[in-house]
């Protein structure tokens, strides 16, 4: 990471801040009050934005893992690891905002709905991924082994979703997803939040890659000194 990309990430940081503030304003003040659900619906803008970014981040882990195994370039391992950490953070946002909304809208913190349950499983898989990374010392071994788990975990997600959907169909279908009509200001608010979270994701990713690259340099310098 050179000086140029450092400047890019600074610009990105400020842009993220601006969009975050705009998103907060839009969600809490600009967007109209939802008729049936009331103010609690406003959490949905952050919930959905975080959920989309979570899926994207997990997709990046999958792609990074495959690319690492094919090309054996440490860059891809760093990207996968960074993306996994951010994905777990976004999952945490999703898993906390979701129940807060659900308690008010559905009357329960949690239902074993396919979407909820597969998100939970996905979250646990990638917490396991991070634990796995934390318990392997050797760097290249950690890279290839965690890549393998990143691939296995991602392949599992659609199967989990299918299995839970079949599992639930035997029970009465209580809730039918997030079918809601959205007014244009609501869509605009959602878009602003989505841009803000996307910028935040890229910002975090660049910071994390920079940190890891610096760690590598420190490691090299340490080796130089000891020999």
């Amino acid at each position, binding site marked *: 990471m050179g000086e140029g990309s450092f400047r890019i990430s600074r610009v990105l940081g400020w842009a993220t801040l601006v969009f975050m503030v705009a998103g907060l304003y839009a969600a809490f003040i600009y967007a109209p009050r939802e008729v049936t659900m009331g103010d609690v619906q406003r959490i949905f803008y952050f919930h959905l934005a975080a959920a989309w970014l979570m899926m994207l981040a997990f997709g990046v882990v999958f792609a990074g893992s495959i690319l690492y*195994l094919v090309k054996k370039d440490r860059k891809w391992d760093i990207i996968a690891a960074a993306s996994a950490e951010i994905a777990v953070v976004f999952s945490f946002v999703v898993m906390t905002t979701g129940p807060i909304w659900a308690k008010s809208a559905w009357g329960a913190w949690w239902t074993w709905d396919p979407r909820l349950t597969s998100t939970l*499983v996905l979250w*646990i*898989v990638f917490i*396991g991924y991070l*634990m*796995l990374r934390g*318990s*392997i*010392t050797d760097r290249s*071994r950690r890279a*290839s*082994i965690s*890549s*393998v*788990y990143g*691939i*296995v*975990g991602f*392949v*599992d997600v659609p*199967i*989990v979703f*299918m*299995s*839970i959907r*079949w*599992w639930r169909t*035997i029970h009465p279908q209580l809730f039918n997803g997030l079918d809601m009509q959205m007014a244009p200001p609501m869509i605009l608010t959602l878009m602003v939040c989505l841009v803000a979270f996307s910028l935040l994701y890229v910002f975090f990713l660049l910071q994390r890659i920079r940190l890891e690259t610096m760690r590598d340099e420190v490691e090299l310098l340490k080796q130089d000194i000891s020999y």
Partner: protein
Amino acid sequence: MGTFGGPTTSSPEQKASRLSRSAEPTRTRSAPGGMSRYFQDVGAIIWKDVISELRTKEMLSSMVVFAVLVILIFNFALEVSGVAPDLIVPGVLWVAITFAGILGLNRSMASEKDKGCLEGLMLCPVDRSAIFLGKMLGNVIFMLIVEVVVVPVLSVLFNLPILMPWLILIVVLGTFGFATVGTLLSTVAVNTRTREVMLPVLLFPIIVPLIIASVKATRAIIIGQAWADILPWLQLLGAFDVIFLVVCLLVFQFVIQE
């Protein structure tokens, strides 16, 4: 026996490799072609595990005792007497299989690693996927032996006739998928500092669909549901087995490389 470690040559020339193994009557019977040679390698690895288990009997005995204990604990934890057993037995069966399976998987890979056998296996002139298949099928065999004991015990203790031909198919399919992912992830786990602790953390979330399908299919069989209700779960089990067999065969080489 005696085939493990195999010939020192991996020459593709059939005559040469045949000469070097002339002392082994079991292998000269079929001409060592590409495919049959591959399955001989797989068979040798399975045989090695079976022999070593027959000599120590460490793994099987602990797996069986553990599975029976799980059933016992569930009997007290769930207060079974008042409840209809067909609601509980499928769940208890698969929890017992899963926990005993974890025990076996950890043991199977830890002994490879501790005694340096994994390095030995990697030095063998066999394909990496043959090592995977050998270990995996070995695990399947041990788990099936445990299940042969556990299923009748469960049937007797809960007073529910569950020994049905279709149940065997479900148990075999479920065990196959469990051992496929489990063998890969136990190889992953022995490479970590925390080792035994790591395997359930990695394995349980992955096998969620397998457990759902197995429990649902087992219950459907026990209460005698229509074939149309059972078939989707069998298809799901089959799909899980095939998808993860392909994925695991593809990625296993990256886990054991030095």
